[in-house]
């Protein structure tokens, strides 16, 4: 192979898709992943996820609320972003954002409404003044708390969760398609891209909830259910194995086929992305959590509760870093290689105070947790566990009694 001296097309020297475009799939990954956890209870009836189901749903909603911000902050003309809804070019995956986001938002809001409806009615009855007006509006003026109505609520929540699951998957999968369908960029162009993104989203969502569940439980002085932690760890390990397999498979295929692009991609991975790919994504974020979670899952019965919980939190934290690195490596990495295939651009480092900078990114990560806190103040997440909808529309419980006790 002749020696290559770096050459990039003159217009290729700018990294247009910045940190914000790394944040966007990271955030929608949480949206999708959290919803998957919630659906594991609401759709698939896994009882061990009951304690975390409402928290997962609320988390999904709070991250949804900020999901459009990184995109709008990145656009050259955010004031025209409504054109994506009004004149969408249907051949563009990015245009799908408008429909997918709105549809999934509606499904999620509806599901939250059905799941929390009893509390809304309860607060509407108990409070006074503007609070009462607020809850009354939320309740849409119906105060039906009969067992039949509750059964309908449960069924509606189940149906919405079942529809919402592909909705959440598409909301994140289409992001993978945005990258995967670009034949101009060999690091992105791959049919595996939407699948990797989605599995990675599941990893990030479950990891986030693993940490959030334990933190919130500690803050509320509730017991941490060992079963829940173990189940989260199991599913996290499962999705991690799938994700890493596919990520590695992509590299192995490229290296084996030695197509035109492998020469420059291997340079990219070993020079510009050495830290973020090899160190963070594969070793620190991949191999180590793989081992730690393997211990948690395979040696579950020998582990003391505290050890299991700590290992889980540690792995989950590393995985949050891994998923971020993966997004970074794909978004930024793909732009570091020039379409000339003869050179790499200089490394990209985001500004601190820029509109698309580090402080804004940190704000985008903190924001949803603030929203979650506000959400909890309006609609308590750990209200009464008996209210969490039982699977199969089991209405033999007497929720009316629990309403008084809540």
């Amino acid at each position, binding site marked *: 192979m002749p020696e290559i001296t770096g050459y990039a097309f003159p217009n290729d020297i700018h990294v247009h898709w910045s940190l914000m475009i790394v944040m966007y799939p990271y955030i929608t990954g949480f949206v999708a992943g959290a919803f998957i956890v919630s659906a594991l209870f609401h759709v698939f009836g896994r009882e061990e996820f009951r304690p975390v189901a409402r928290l997962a749903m609320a988390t999904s909603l709070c991250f949804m609320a900020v999901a459009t911000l990184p995109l709008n902050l990145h656009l050259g003309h955010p004031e025209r972003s409504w054109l994506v*809804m009004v*004149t969408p070019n249907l051949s563009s995956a990015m245009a799908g954002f408008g429909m997918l986001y709105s549809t999934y938002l509606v499904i999620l809001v509806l599901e939250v409404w059905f799941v929390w409806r009893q509390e809304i009615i309860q607060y509407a009855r108990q409070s006074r003044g503007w609070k009462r007006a607020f809850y009354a509006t939320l*309740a*849409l003026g*119906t105060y*039906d708390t009969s067992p*039949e*109505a509750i059964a309908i609520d449960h069924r509606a929540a189940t149906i919405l969760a079942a529809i919402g699951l592909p909705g959440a998957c598409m909301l994140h999968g289409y992001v993978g398609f945005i990258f995967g369908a670009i034949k101009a960029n060999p690091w992105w162009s791959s049919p595996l891209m939407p699948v990797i993104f989605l599995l990675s989203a599941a990893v990030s969502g479950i990891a986030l909830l693993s940490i959030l569940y334990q933190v919130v439980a500690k803050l509320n002085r509730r017991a941490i259910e060992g079963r829940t932690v173990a189940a989260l760890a199991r599913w996290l390990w499962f999705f991690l194995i799938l994700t890493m397999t596919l990520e590695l498979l992509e590299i192995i295929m490229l290296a084996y086929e030695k197509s035109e692009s492998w020469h420059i991609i291997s340079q990219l991975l070993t020079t510009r992305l050495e830290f973020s790919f090899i160190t963070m994504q594969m070793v620190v974020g991949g191999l180590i959590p793989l081992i730690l979670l393997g211990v948690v899952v395979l040696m579950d019965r020998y582990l003391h509760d505290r050890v299991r919980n700590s290992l889980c939190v540690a792995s989950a934290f590393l995985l949050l870093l891994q998923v971020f690195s993966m997004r970074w490596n794909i978004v930024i990495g793909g732009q570091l290689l020039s379409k000339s295939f003869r050179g790499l651009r200089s490394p990209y480092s985001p500004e601190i105070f820029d509109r698309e900078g580090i402080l804004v990114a940190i704000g985008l990560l903190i924001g949803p947790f603030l929203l979650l806190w506000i959400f909890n103040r309006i609609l308590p997440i750990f209200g009464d566990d008996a209210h969490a909808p039982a699977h199969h529309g089991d209405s033999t419980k007497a929720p009316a009694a629990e309403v008084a006790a809540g």
Partner: protein
Amino acid sequence: MEHARHVFRVALVLLVVIAAVFLGRGFLVPRSYGTFGPYRADNVAEQMKARPPAHAGAASCTPCHKAKAEARAAGSHKSVSCEVCHAPLLRHVADGKVTGSMPIDKSFTLCARCHRRIQGRPEKFPQVVLEQHVTSKLEGAVCLECHDPHSPKL
């Protein structure tokens, strides 16, 4: 179905919102959108009128600069448009009236752009190693000491 009243309520709210969105969309779609395809058709005419053409071609210089034009046409720069070394006509003339003097860079860097010997130029093209070609110091308008830019071959 009495107990499903709240379901109908929320479905109604949803339908109202969807209807409002579609109605709103009808007002927001640009007028000429979709005429020829999924784009704003008015833009084609806008692009045609986007700016007045800045370059006008060598023939546009002849009416006022006959002598130089004839010298150029007879010399080895006959395929080099005036606007290559000078500037587009619009910098100098607009609406038939002179608006400013025509810029010219008389330094050797302008000539060097075409005639300095570098890898890549066809062999038959006249190019020199400037440091060897110029006997005095390579600075300023040194090329013009020997060459007439409008008919440069000696």
